């Protein structure tokens, strides 16, 4: 057999390519892996815990747990539980309403402040504002709730009445009785103020990364600042802003204390955002948890699971939106 024949006849199997990582690398890898996995595991354990606790209630109520809106535990004369119904619909609607109001009011304000901070504010004023907004992002939500209850409520009530007076023909702005205090509208405003810092911070970060050569190209074509922002910054930042808005939405949906403080938690379906009744899932859990019997606790855990899943869905949707709107401007 000649050398040539040998070469052309047998094609070698691909070799396995390996490397022996250094010890320091291996140790670091282990540390990082443990860190990364632990957050995943903790999250998984919470979901598991909620599922285990809630499964009984979910099995009994089935789909009516999210479609019905009756939350009742009836006791007989001896204090034993005679009958119980758990349906979350009223609180789910309340959750969406308040969170949507928060996003609709909060995101435009946040985007405008981010544009101001990135392209208009200068020097020490900029530094001060940026650190103030970051500070606001870390503020305890209870304080927002108190502030909303004590300070905002009075003036927001005025606006609510105005809206009702002139837009009352739209069912959304109608009220069955003139009770304007502690409404989903006011809770939504408090939530809006709560999410503004985080959405502003994220948007600012994105706007800041707009490639300089594109900005310069726009200016070199005689663009004003406004038209440069519209043609270059917004297309570039759109995806990130949508992501930030969804993060804000998630935060507003899960918010407990602020809503609990401001809102008049009443267990009924309420689409009328100006009317002082409603609630959200998180505030329901807080409200009922203290005096709940074992079965109701399970039902509250099931409610928690629903909230958990909702947050996951919102995040998934935000990923899709970012991919859809974000890539083209890049």
């Amino acid at each position, binding site marked *: 057999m000649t050398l040539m024949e040998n070469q052309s006849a047998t094609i070698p199997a691909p070799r396995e390519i390996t490397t022996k990582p250094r010890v320091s690398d291996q140790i670091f890898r282990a540390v990082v892996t443990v860190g990364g996995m632990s957050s995943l595991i903790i999250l998984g354990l919470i979901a598991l815990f909620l599922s285990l606790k809630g499964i009984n209630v979910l099995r009994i109520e089935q789909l009516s747990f999210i479609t019905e809106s009756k939350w009742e535990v009836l006791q007989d004369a001896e204090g034993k539980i005679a009958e119980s119904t758990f349906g979350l619909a009223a609180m789910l609607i309340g959750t969406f309403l308040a969170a949507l109001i928060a996003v609709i009011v909060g995101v435009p304000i946040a985007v405008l402040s981010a544009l101001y901070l990135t392209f208009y504010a200068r020097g020490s004023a900029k530094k001060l504002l940026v650190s103030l907004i970051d500070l606001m992002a870390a503020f305890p939500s209870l304080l927002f709730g108190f502030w909303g209850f004590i300070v905002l409520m009075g003036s927001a009530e005025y606006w609510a009445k105005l809206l009702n007076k002139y837009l009352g023909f739209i069912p959304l702005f109608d009220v069955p009785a003139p009770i304007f205090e502690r409404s989903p509208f006011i809770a939504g405003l408090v939530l809006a103020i709560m999410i503004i810092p985080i959405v502003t911070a994220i948007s600012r970060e994105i706007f800041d990364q707009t*490639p300089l*050569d*594109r900005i*310069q*190209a*726009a*200016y*070199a*074509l*005689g*663009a*004003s600042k406004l*038209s*440069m922002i519209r*043609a*270059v910054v917004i*297309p*570039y930042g759109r995806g990130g802003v949508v992501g930030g808005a969804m993060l804000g939405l998630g935060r507003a949906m899960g918010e407990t204390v602020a809503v609990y403080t401001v809102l008049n938690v009443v267990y009924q379906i309420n689409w009328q955002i100006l009317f002082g009744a409603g609630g959200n899932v998180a505030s329901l859990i807080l409200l009922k948890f203290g005096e709940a019997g074992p079965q109701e606790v399970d039902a509250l855990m099931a409610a928690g699971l629903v909230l958990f899943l909702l947050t996951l869905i919102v995040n998934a949707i935000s990923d899709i939106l970012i991919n859809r709107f974000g890539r*083209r*401007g*890049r």
Partner: protein
Amino acid sequence: MSSTENSNNENNMEKKMQTTTPSSLASVANNREQRVPGTNLLGTGLETRGVHAWFGKKHVLSDVSLDFAAGTVTALIGPSGCGKSTYLRTLNRMHEFIPTAALAGEVLLDGQDIYAPGTDVTKIRLRVGMVFQKPNPFPSMTIGENVLSGLKLAQLKKSNTDELLESCLVRAGLWSEVKDRLGEHGGALSGGQQQRLCIARSLAVEPQVLLMDEPCSALDPGSTFRIEETISELAKSMTIVIVTHNMQQAARVSDYTAFFLSDGGPGVMVETAPTSKIFSSPTDKRTEDYVTGRFG
């Protein structure tokens, strides 16, 4: 028709791309069609008087006075860091875009100081366009939208945009390559095509003066050749100032050449003359050293 045009182009290209020794640069400059400055209705051109530039405390450009006659091409040459880009950016007020930037002196466009108080800077940039070193089309826009983006950005009203779109792309030498794909995104083009797209984009707002900062430094020889052709074509209707590191390019496209130099301090304009003179008999020893390749 287009095939003969193409083969002609390639012949030309070979001729032009032949390696030229510094001494033959002057003959390159002499051999091409000569332009007569200021013969048409292009305005009186651009002029700078005693321009100085700073970045913060750092003085980077000292006392540059130059005239750019309407309808001519002027090349700015000199080693890296001598202030060519900085000077170019003072000509359409892109300099002030850098927060620490400062300036002294005057830049006169048709006799009017573009830094005069009360001037609307966006109007200046419409009249003095710019093409950058790195092609920078807007990726969120299609090829067609890119060309016409200046109209939108500067809020200009144009009635016949289709005609404008075609004429800009024709003048930038890109029409035949993109006419069937105007709806595609600008990022789908090659680097050379992107740069010609950027030239077409700056033409759409009909500037009097076009500034080009090393427009070919990131491109292959073929694209470079096409852009040089475009420059010669454009010079019939506008004033062009081009920064280039490539002395052959300066010889091929420019009527006048200005040599910049920095000895560690601020950059100065050492010498300016008709391009053939700069390459044949420069007055300053430093210019001669640079164009004969002794440094830089």
